[in-house]
């Protein structure tokens, strides 16, 4: 009996979440792919042919015959989409580098901190992650506005004569992404620095390395797994970011997440937005696989 129960328990523990994710996470991607090959129609749902289980296998074959790659041709012909993909990758790339430059010293400082205050510092980095993303982005509007708090401060200090125009430019997007994703970069770097054996840097210094050289030759290479994980955690979601370009960016800012949203909500063109999503996914598949590989390796080491 116990054996039977054990086998059943083991099976269920795997099967239930597995089936859930297959149905709600993986299968939807195939539906996206399928609808990206459909035609736009003025109907509900607004695409043709409509997927109909009742028509059986024959109907399914008919469906496939009606597939068209028109939406993809449309995407390549309209420069708007190509530009949106390119500028999303650029903005995400620049923001990732800026985030790394700010996060590394913070993570390094935390790893060097006395053991007694480390848990508190860690808690303080994690806390903003629990606060609403929307709220944190919203908070920057009041700061970056032409008559906002930052300009008021700089004008009072006499550092500038004219208010800086930051809101609704790419700079506001960089600030928004760096701010929102900073904890994602700090945490993995901190955890790889914390695990590091400090006798290694001491040995390098005893052997005549300057502290800066010891950092670049010993500490930084050893923190690479954390740096890579952090960069992936920032870069991948940032490429498809919607809230930040929508609230902080200007009307001329093109980012693919926003384009997809507008295509879907304003233009109600489901097949085109499905095609936009499919291409975005294809672009991100390599970094995502890379991230998973790194993650699986880290798990294997933690075992």
């Amino acid at each position, binding site marked *: 009996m116990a054996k039977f129960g054990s086998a059943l328990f083991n099976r269920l523990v795997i099967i239930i979440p*597995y089936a859930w994710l297959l149905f709600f*996470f993986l299968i939807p991607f195939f*539906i996206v792919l399928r609808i990206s090959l459909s035609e736009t129609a003025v109907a509900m749902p607004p695409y043709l042919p409509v997927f109909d289980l009742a028509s059986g296998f024959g109907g399914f074959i008919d469906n496939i015959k009606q597939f068209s790659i028109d939406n993809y041709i449309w995407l390549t012909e309209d420069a708007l989409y190509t530009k949106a993909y390119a500028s999303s990758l650029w903005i995400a790339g620049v923001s990732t580098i800026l985030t790394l430059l700010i996060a590394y010293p913070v993570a390094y400082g935390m790893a060097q901190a006395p053991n007694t205050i480390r848990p508190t510092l860690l808690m303080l980095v994690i806390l903003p992650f629990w606060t609403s993303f929307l709220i944190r982005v919203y908070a920057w509007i009041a700061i970056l506005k032409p008559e906002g708090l930052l300009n008021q401060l700089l004008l009072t200090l006499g550092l500038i004569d004219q208010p800086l125009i930051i809101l609704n430019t790419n700079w506001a997007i960089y600030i928004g992404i760096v701010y929102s994703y900073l904890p994602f970069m700090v945490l993995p770097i901190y955890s790889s620095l914390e695990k590091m054996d400090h006798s290694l840097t001491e040995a390098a210094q005893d052997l005549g390395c300057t502290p800066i050289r010891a950092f670049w030759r010993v500490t930084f290479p050893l923190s690479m797994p954390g740096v890579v994980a952090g960069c992936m955690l920032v870069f991948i979601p940032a490429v498809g970011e919607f809230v930040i370009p929508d609230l902080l960016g200007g009307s001329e800012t093109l980012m693919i997440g926003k384009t997809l949203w507008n295509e879907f909500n304003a233009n109600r063109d489901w097949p085109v937005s499905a095609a936009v999503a499919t291409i975005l996914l294809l672009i991100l598949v390599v970094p995502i696989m890379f991230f998973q590989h790194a993650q699986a390796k880290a798990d294997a080491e933690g075992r």
Partner: protein
Amino acid sequence: MQRWSRFNIASIVIGFAFLYLPIVLLVIFSFNESKLVTVWAGFSTKWYVQLFHNQALLDAAWVTIRVGLISATIATVLGTMAALAMTRYTRFRGRMLFSGMIYAPLVMPEVITGLSMLLLFVAIGFDRGFWTLTLAHITFTMCFVAVVVQSRLLSFDRSIEEAAMDLGATPVATFLQVTLPVIAPAVFSGWVLAFTLSLDDLVISSFTSGPGATTLPMRIYSQVRLGVTPEINAVCTILIGIVAIGVLIASVVSRRREIQRVKDEQAAFAH
């Protein structure tokens, strides 16, 4: 202590100021007398009073809390199962795909997840509303729970489980009486994380929700687009307050449990 240099302290102070200053300013200006968010005109709580007369906002808050409670609870069960599957069974058919489906939602742009789930609901003819919203939230939050619980299971001493099984406990009894009490703090923080993620989500909710199921972030977003007002600052402050209290309770509980566990272990060894 020599390693903790001036440069280290400065970078931490600047980094944390950057993280917290915008939130602090937002909270301060929610108590502003003036309607202008950027000019201080005196202390007032009138925006909070006004909130409680905004029926649309209160309805949205109620939907958000219900979705959060239901989805976080189911996501915790599913996520804990997934974490067990990932750590206990190192090889089963399709394990690569399984771990892929756990990690991918963590980084997947929300517009893609939201759109794909919406198209699924349309394809199977499921009317959009409260339940599609809840299902979508379960799906993306369970992966976060799985990762949190998994990291606890990796450092778990399995010999006590084996001992329980040797003494005749069924797998279910072993799980409930031995494993669960040990991983409970991680399961609990997974639940809190799932709840706050559900509470905060805008993009996936906008795609998967239907008429009558507007969440608080969706309501806030549509107001933010019209401009910054102290009233939104007040809603945000309340949300931040709830999350801060939740996280504080979670950390106190887990620290207490940890201290208790260390004590128990010491007591056990002393015998």
